[in-house]
């Protein structure tokens, strides 16, 4: 952060003289120091993968979920402050339920992403609240086909073929660019996503991690769920081997 503070960083309601809202940038920083998460939209579905630091050996495996299901056909993957992000997920669930109840069809990814981004944006407008210290990836596979969105603390949302958030996002994005997303299947994307996460994780410097991988694709019957244990193990093994090969070079 080049020009820290100087009195303009206390509230989201005041711009700095050079046109920035520092609180929003600080919130973005909270995401940029958090776990890497990647999302890949392929021809038959969407895959999301996130790393979770193994905080303790006594931690129950699979606890502290970072990927959550919003509706049957959509899910959210979070990076940043988990407690903040859980509010986003709960909001998404309410919106999805309300949309289905009112319109009779499942909420499209574009609508879910825009509802969530509008809500997150309102948290950058008033001094009584602070912005969300979290970004989310939104995976959806409804009538419009598989879609992937990303929403930032500023309330900006983009639709992607593949993207990453969190501390390894830059390296992860350049890895993702190498994939051919027109031919990749969801099953293959699970392996690739795990590899991308591990390529950004240095075991000599960082704590060990646990992966969480979900998909919503034809193979999962267009339901958003964690990938089957066998596929998860296969992806994790492939990713670890990939990392070791990387380190040997």
């Amino acid at each position, binding site marked *: 952060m080049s020009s820290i503070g100087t009195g303009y960083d206390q509230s989201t309601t005041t711009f700095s003289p050079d046109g920035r809202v520092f609180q929003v940038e600080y919130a973005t920083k909270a995401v940029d120091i958090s776990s890497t998460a990647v999302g890949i939209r392929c021809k038959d579905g969407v895959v999301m993968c996130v790393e979770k630091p193994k905080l303790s050996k006594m931690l129950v495996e699979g606890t502290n979920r970072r990927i959550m*299901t919003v509706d049957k056909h959509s899910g959210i993957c979070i990076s940043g402050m988990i407690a903040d992000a859980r509010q986003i997920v709960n909001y998404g669930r309410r919106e999805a339920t309300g949309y289905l109840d009112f319109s009779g069809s499942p909420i499209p990814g574009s609508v879910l992403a825009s509802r969530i981004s509008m809500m997150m944006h309102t948290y950058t407008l008033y001094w009584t609240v602070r912005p969300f210290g979290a970004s989310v990836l939104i995976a959806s596979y409804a009538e419009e086909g598989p879609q992937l969105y990303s929403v930032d603390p500023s309330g900006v949302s983009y639709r992607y073929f593949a993207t990453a958030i969190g501390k390894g996002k830059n390296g992860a994005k350049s890895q993702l660019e190498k994939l051919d997303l027109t031919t990749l299947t969801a099953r293959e994307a699970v392996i690739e996503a795990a590899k991308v996460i591990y390529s950004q994780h240095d075991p000599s410097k960082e704590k060990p991690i646990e992966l969480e991988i979900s998909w919503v694709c034809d193979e999962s019957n267009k*339901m958003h769920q964690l990938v089957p244990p066998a596929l998860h193990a296969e992806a994790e093994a492939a990713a670890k081997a990939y990392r070791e090969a990387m380190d040997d070079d």
Partner: protein
Amino acid sequence: MQAHAPESAFTRTTNPLVTGGSVVALKYAGGVLVATDTLASYGSLARFENVCRMSTVGMNHDVLLAAGGDYSDYQQMLKMIDIRATQEFALDDGAALSASEMHHWLTRILYQRRSKMDPLWNQIVIAGFRDGQVYLGTSDLYGTMYTEDIIATGLGAHMALPLLRKGWRADMSEAEARKLLEDCMRVLFYRDTRASANINIGKVDASGCTVSAPIKLETFWEHPEFVRGGGHLGNGSW
């Protein structure tokens, strides 16, 4: 009804509009069979002849819900269950409402709604199978609930229950149970002016929960008493 209500009080829909008739259900050795006909009446008019009044519900579709009474209230009930099933799916903790839990939950809703003078105007039958246990229960629009081996709602409570009591055994085979159920539905079709000969049969057993395609009951109208009628008896009989 509306006309007699005091001006200060507000009334809600306490009459059903489009209605389904009886639901008949029985346990047999290893499962449950449930029958409904496919008619939804508008008053005494046979308005919709091909609707299904039973559905597999819950996160895993392992609970059978059949209903008589207001058809739109039944549809609303299905919607509420689906919203809840989606919540269960999203929580992803492996838990799913059993038939018994579903029955208790729906009964709480029915009781709450009747206490608000805004009832869901239905008689429902719920069947399920979990952990080797068969479940069969019913609730009405007042929130009364019970479980039984044999259940019949609507006019069936008067006309089918006596037949079920006579013919039912705990160790019945599926074929025997199906025969008894069809006999009940046939009698109802003969005597209930809001019934039809097209029926759905739902089955719940260890392998899961299914609803059959509609089948047409065989009927025989040439009984002498049917042809002759009862008018000559002079006792008001038809």
